[in-house]
């Protein structure tokens, strides 16, 4: 997980009618997005530690790039598993509703299924053209197929999280590993490595196993077109490649200007904008 801040310097927030923010406290990373007149102004991502502290770190990291102050943000929505612990949020909305809202905003009204593969959970969300979530299915209590399992696997094979997906994709062959349990799969992987099986084949096998695990959730929920993938693991080409071939459906192409890990925070910021308008109308 890389910590970063991006600002759009073309935007002058002082001339804006609305300045709102979404803060997503995820299990692995905390993200903040500030929208100025619904346009993305600043994104930030930091590692989650104590939720309250991470919320401040995420928003302060964003604010540090601008002369904008916390009090200038008119409405803030907290989301993610730590949403209740964003001390400066005006309201909270679940990551399910925010994920659907953010995905439809980025990819457009044709999106009907959002697969959110995060650090500690994996969800399939169905939504309307307006970005309203209509149903969802959450992974069971198992680490297989979530970000943490890839992190611990990367640690096991002594590779960077950001690079192992590409290694998996490059491998011509793939070893068969357990798709039932991340821990079993890792012990099987270790056996293969010690038996001198080429590392890239083991890495490809692990990615394939995790993708199969995610695909069972997606298959149970049903994947309707258009289909998008968000969350940190959406950046892992090894998982995504295996997932698309297992599900026999392609996702809409990622938008280069959007980090898929930020989609939920974006949804929260869109909710903040809506609530701000509702308040001003009342």
């Amino acid at each position: 997980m890389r910590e970063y801040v991006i600002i759009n310097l073309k935007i002058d927030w002082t001339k804006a009618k609305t300045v709102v923010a979404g803060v997503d406290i995820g299990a692995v990373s905390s993200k903040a997005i500030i929208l100025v007149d619904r346009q993305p102004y600043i994104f930030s991502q930091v590692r989650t530690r104590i939720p309250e502290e991470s919320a401040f770190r995420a928003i302060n990291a964003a604010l540090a790039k601008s002369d904008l102050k916390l009090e200038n943000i008119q409405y803030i929505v907290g989301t993610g598993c730590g949403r209740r612990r964003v001390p400066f949020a005006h309201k909270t909305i679940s990551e399910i509703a925010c994920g659907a809202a953010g995905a439809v905003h980025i990819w457009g009204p044709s999106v009907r299924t959002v697969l959110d593969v995060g650090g500690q959970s994996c969800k399939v969300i169905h939504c309307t053209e307006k970005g309203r979530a209509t149903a969802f299915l959450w992974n069971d209590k198992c680490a297989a197929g979530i970000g943490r399992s890839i992190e611990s696997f990367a640690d096991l094979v002594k590779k960077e999280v950001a690079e192992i997906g590409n290694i998996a994709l490059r491998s011509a062959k793939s070893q068969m590993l357990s798709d039932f349990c991340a821990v079993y799969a890792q012990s099987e992987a270790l056996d293969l490595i010690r038996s001198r099986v080429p590392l890239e084949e083991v890495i490809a096998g692990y990615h394939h196993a995790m993708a199969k695990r995610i695909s069972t959730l997606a298959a149970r929920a049903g994947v309707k077109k258009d289909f998008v993938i968000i969350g940190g693991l959406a950046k892992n080409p090894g998982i995504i490649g295996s997932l698309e071939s297992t599900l026999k459906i392609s996702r809409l192409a990622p938008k280069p200007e959007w980090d898929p890990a930020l989609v939920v925070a974006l949804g929260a910021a869109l909710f903040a904008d809506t609530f701000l308008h509702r308040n001003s109308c009342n």
Partner: protein
Amino acid sequence: MMKNSNSIIEHFHHITENIHEYAKSLQSKGHLVAGYMCTHVPEEILYAAGIIPVRILSSHVSQAMTRSYMHETYCSFSHDCAYQGLTHNYDFLDLIVTSSSCIHMGEAFNVWVRFAGFQGKSFLIPYPHIIHTKPAVAFMVESFAEFKQFLEKFVNKSITDEDMERAIKTYNHTRRLLKQLWEFLRHEDSPITGSEVATVTLASQFMEKQEYNQLLEELIQKLESGPGHRLPGVRLMVSGGACDDLRIFDLIEHLDYSASLIFIDSCTAARYFWFEVPEDRADKLQAIAEGYINRIPCPAKDNVPGSGEKKRFRFIHQFIEGFKPDGVVLLYQRFCSPQPMDIVALKPILDRLGIPSIELELDTTLPRTQFQTQLEAFVEIITGVAP
């Protein structure tokens, strides 16, 4: 006589949190106490024999030790119940009983018998696998007769028809009172919440029935004469397997959104009591068999041969019409097979009725944050939250 309805509910709550203390207090009053592991056990026969049935429930603590005795993929409730035996939490029981209803709970029972010192003081009641068939009643009558004989030997006295009739009437009285209590939840201005009703219902599963009935009558009287308070927000029904973790029901009523629990279709709630044993039959065992067959079926037993129909769904439909939930929470134990298998058939029915649903998988411990997020997301879906 207690002061008000809250103090009675608090009393029931205290008992649910101190089951062992309560059961031991029954023994100190001279009663024999039998633990039972499944609601297919005809408690009436135990009661007629002068034995107080106490349901064996879980403790919601980590029970890794049971993995040496039971397969990993047995449900967490059965592991937790087996753990109760292995840690000798229920050593004071005079007897344990179960019926051959659920394989997982049957294995928990075997653990108690083989490894927890209950070998000489246990009874397994054979129960038909498919209850929706003609021979089922005769099978059950025979099983219950064997159980009755065992108990007569155990207490060293015969169980008369009068004993049986008294027990049937006492238990039916409990069922009618509980139904009366649950009826409050049909209305928006119920004087009692769903989680309080769940607490009172759970207490019924291990309290001495006459004592319980008296307290419950008092509670209902006070609730009827007191003011109702609107059940707020989204009305949620729970349908699923055994759940004695009352915190989940409390969580439903304490989300960031306003929501009320208005019905629980589970063997630790409505399925425990939503039936009666006919009181007018000459053959009391036949009456009990008929009563138990006509109850809301457990998914482990609910399969109409030939059509594969699930009779429980008729009840669920009836409860949806009567209690008018806005959504259904499908709650089941991790590694339970019959409950999640039922969901496959139940979900399309709920979809046709326009009732949204979500699945929550229970484990030994309660993943509060995760459940809260899922429940809140569910409420957002029901209320149509959109940016």
